[in-house]
């Protein structure tokens, strides 16, 4: 390679994107990290407090509850919005009327989480909701579901799955379509049954797409904000808060910017840890996953 004497104009192509990312994301990350070590209520200047905010994240009961809820969101998403659609995709592949099912499941994914929340709140509320009359006609009177702190996180996760399921299903169907036929046919000829074919042949071939979906599912669920916020604002009280809602509430409603920022950092660390494999694979040149 020849050595260059003039400044390399190739960097000019890179600079606009880099500048945007620096200003919109990387510098803010540094700021937020700094705030996370301070106490700041907006009206008096930030005061350095070391790690005490982080200590609070893991010792304050409401925040422990958010950590627990966020864990539920991640687990629920992985089971019901990743594993389950993979299973359903393999079922849909068995039936002749694929496109009808595909359409039905993909429609909710075209709505935003905000819209999904608005729909489902109307379905679930006790006054003029869609669900209660059906139960009443069967002689069952349900207590209001959303304000019930024991079950509402599960209901909110259900709404998210309703919304998120279709896009992953579509991905898996695409993946299944692009899998070469030969290994499967070979396995079938060797006498493998459906389950064996799936676990030993189909799934390994789907691995790249599964990894991508898993990484996205973790990142999306770990920062879940929209659905619990639109449907019940993390309530009643703070019962159904996720980390992202706690962050918002601590920062913007309770004016503990420092604590809010440290929650942001904690979410980031979890997200980075969870998607580490994805990142590590990216680190290798030319490997797209």
């Amino acid at each position: 390679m020849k050595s260059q004497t003039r400044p390399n104009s190739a960097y000019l192509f890179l600079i606009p994107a880099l500048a945007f990312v620096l200003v919109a994301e990387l510098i803010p990350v540094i700021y937020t990290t700094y705030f996370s070590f301070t106490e700041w209520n907006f009206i008096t200047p930030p005061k350095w407090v070391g790690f005490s905010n982080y200590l609070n994240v893991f010792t304050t009961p409401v925040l422990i509850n958010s950590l627990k809820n966020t864990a539920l969101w991640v687990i629920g998403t992985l089971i019901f919005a990743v594993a389950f659609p993979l299973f359903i995709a393999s079922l849909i592949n068995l039936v002749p009327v694929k496109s009808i099912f595909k359409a039905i499941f993909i429609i909710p994914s075209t709505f935003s989480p905000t819209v999904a929340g608005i729909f489902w709140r109307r379905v679930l509320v006790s006054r003029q909701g869609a669900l209660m009359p059906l139960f009443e006609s069967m002689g069952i009177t349900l207590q209001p579901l959303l304000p019930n702190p024991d079950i509402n996180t599960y209901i909110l996760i259900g709404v998210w799955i309703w919304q998120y399921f279709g896009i992953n299903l579509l991905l898996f169907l695409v993946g299944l379509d692009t899998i070469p036929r030969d290994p499967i046919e070979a396995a079938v000829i060797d006498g493998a049954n459906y389950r064996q074919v799936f676990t030993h042949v189909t799934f390994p071939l789907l691995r790249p797409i599964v990894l991508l979906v898993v990484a996205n599912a973790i990142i999306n669920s770990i920062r879940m904000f929209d659905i619990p916020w639109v449907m019940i604002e993390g309530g009643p009280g703070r019962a159904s808060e996720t980390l992202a809602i706690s962050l918002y509430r601590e920062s913007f409603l309770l004016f503990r910017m420092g604590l809010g920022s440290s929650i942001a950092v904690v979410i980031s660390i979890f997200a980075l840890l969870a998607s580490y494999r994805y990142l590590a694979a990216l680190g290798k040149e030319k490997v797209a996953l």
Partner: protein
Amino acid sequence: MKKGLVKVLVLAGSLLLVWTFFLAGAGAEVREFSLFHDNPEFHSSWINLGEASAEDIGIRAVPTDYETEIYASRVKIDLTTPRAPAVFKWWFGYRAFELWDAGLLADLSEVYEEVGEYIAPGIKEALSLDGVPYALPFNVGYWVWYYSKAVYDQYGLDLPETWEEFEEQMAFFKEEGIYSIGNTIGVSRWTSFIVFQEILYRLDADFYYRLVNGQARYTDPTAVEAMEIWKDWLEKGYFAPMDATFVEDIPRMLNEGSLAFAPFGDWYGGILQDQGLVPDEDYGVFIPPAINPEGEGAIILEISPLCVGVNSPDKELGKEWLKWYASSESAAEILWGELRFPSTLNITVDMIQEDDPVLARVFELVEDYPNAMIRYWEATPVEIVEHAVDEFNSMLVSPGRYMEILESIENRAKEVWPNYGVEY
């Protein structure tokens, strides 16, 4: 190279032009300043107020309605900068104290000197800290109980005159399949303190006063007794379904006669009227009787203040505007005609009587209640209120936890009071 430089200069120049174009204000004849508020439902009236003042005195208030949820943080950040709003709606009591303490609110003595006569007596003192007035009233409201005329007419009942009658009626409503109390979670968490406040000061008004001022404890017998009454009501099923909203569902339930009471500030009449209820025909107000003699004569007061940001470059305009706001007939017309807010003395008792007999009734009723106390939301430090409100929400769905809840609030109070120089 030179050509390139010219290009850059031309580009920069045109950018600058575009920039100034975007930033340029309107014409110079009418001076403008920004006004912040968090009531989307009042926004059109704020615009009308701004336009009316532009016509009257050549100062236009340009209102922005913020997301209620970020309003407070937005205002707090801006108050420390020259972007501070000239006039903004805030809360009084401890919520204003924070800002006052940080030196962010302008002294409005001058405004009161000129137009104080238009403000009801006692308000200036309520809106003063260290003897310096920091705000004008946007709305002054008392806390009463709204009741459904449909329910009372159907059963031919009279309003309860003693606490026993009050509880008997609620038991009766329960038997009839009618909800008694419209205080729910819905989608607004702040309303959860209402029933606690309403029971507590009826038990002992002085205790309520001492509690919010850090001289009594949440685990004291009176507070526990209030929680026990509340728990009892919750467990008996007196409350409307917890997912009902107070702006839509509760008005409808009062209207159709499936709900008897809703405890709110007297601004709630405006919400009821928006939902198509007619004062005196569909709803009325009453003040439930005290439980103990110590609870007699007490009432809860709420003032929404308008403050001036001390760092705003337009603060003098803001003060001028507030003088107009307090004294002019056209402001009073909008405040009363559109919002039903009797904010200034330009709004007379006759006007109120004619347009909103229920609100007039509130003013009549409160004359027998000389002991006006501040609403819980503003009466005690913000850090305690916010925590208590969350805990009270959980009370609404799991009343059995009431002692745990009191202890939790007590712990927070212990942490917070020393920051306010109160030995607790």
